[in-house]
């Protein structure tokens, strides 16, 4: 699956028309131990660049932004019981699953190489 990133450290892994959205290793490390993930409901629409939820640590809540537009077709229920999954394996722990409505939006995102370069500037 190809992976793309936003500058705010959300990723989307793309499998055909389905996108799995989570947060990067860098974000997971910055957040510290995750205490709660605030997620939309299945059937909600998300929009590229818009906030769709929040991820909480002891210190703070950080808004989550969607890399693409589309309908939420799944939320990761495991996170309700164990939000620290995000710390343990951020790239294997998607938060929401989206039916991508406009694949051309992916073109404006960073691929892995571009994201690595971006991280080097932080």
């Amino acid at each position, binding site marked *: 699956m190809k992976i793309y990133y936003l500058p705010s450290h959300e990723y989307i892994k793309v499998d055909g028309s389905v996108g799995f959205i989570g947060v990067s290793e860098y974000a997971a490390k910055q957040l510290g*131990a995750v205490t709660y993930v605030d997620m939309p409901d299945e059937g909600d629409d998300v929009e590229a660049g818009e906030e769709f939820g929040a991820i*909480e640590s*002891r*210190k703070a*809540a950080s808004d989550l932004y969607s890399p693409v537009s589309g309908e939420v077709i799944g939320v990761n229920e495991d996170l309700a019981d164990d939000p620290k999954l995000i710390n343990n394996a951020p790239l294997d722990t998607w938060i929401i699953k989206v039916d991508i409505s406009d694949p051309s939006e992916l073109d404006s995102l960073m691929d892995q190489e571009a994201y690595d370069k971006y991280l080097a500037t932080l």
Partner: protein
Amino acid sequence: METKKTCLHSRHTSLGASMSPFAGYDMPIEYAGLDAEHTAVRTCCGVFDVSHMGEVDIKGPDALRFVNHIFTNDASTLADGQCAYGMMTRADGGTVDDLLVYRRSAGDFILVINASNTAKDIEWIRQCSPGFDVEISDRCADFGQLAVQGPDSEKTMREVLGIDCSGLGFYYFTTLPDLTIVSRTGYTGEDGFEVYAAPGKIVDMWDRLMAAGVAPCGLGCRDTLRFEAGLPLYGDELDDDITPIEAGLGMFVKLDKEGGFIGRDALARQKVEGPKRKLVGLEIDSPATARHGFEVLDMNGAVVGHITTGYNSISVGKNIAMAFVDAPYAALGSELQVKIRRKTAPAKVIKKRFYTPNYKK
């Protein structure tokens, strides 16, 4: 404005602390992690760099009369070597700052003020001083400050720093031969000490504490610890437009002390009439945390207040918060709601001292 550094800045960065600007200083937020640092202070001992705090000397024949003029608590009942917590208030009762007053003698006091307020406070103190024979000195640059906090603090002070504090009572201080000041005070709800000394000495003490394995603690857990103990943070539970009465700090406001103080009449009136809003504790039935600024609603959805501080509490184990609510909703047990982003969560008013402090009195 350029970000200032405390005398321990290079120690923090070499320990790998995550640093963040606070009150004009680049300060450590956490080292090993907020939860571990919080637990160290609750169970054994941790040390904080609080060198950003401000110190002001008030000396002279009118020092006592002047301190009492600007301070809500009563400095005249203090023994030499005793300190007191209280506020400076404006004529309308709004809080200029909350502070500790250390009485060396009736003619010699140290005021310890919040870093975020030092410039404002010193200007305020000077403005209030005409008519009093006092000398006001900004000592902020002369002192670094450490807070050694936790049940093992007394042992740590003795074994690591060679300072015997066994005879020091709660809210008393001593001045060592090298002019280091040690008080049995803190901001964590645990026994502990605050140490004021020249920056070089502070660095030396810090290094000895690190070599002995004492946990370095950042501002992250300083906030969770003080919050659980129900202690206010200026900027959250207090500010220029919040009175100590509203914030539930009436026990530190001595309305009947001789000579009164600035703000006395406004606060006395508010106490009689009852404040329109009150600071309360909230227990929130939600896995999400209600944070500063979030709205508090009544059961019909009308806004009746706002959160001042909220955490998924480490020592209490649930989501709790402090909030200002309109007085009719402030009674213990009141059922309210909190708006957390798009959702609302049920909340109940509880005592805001969420964690019972373990002070050595």
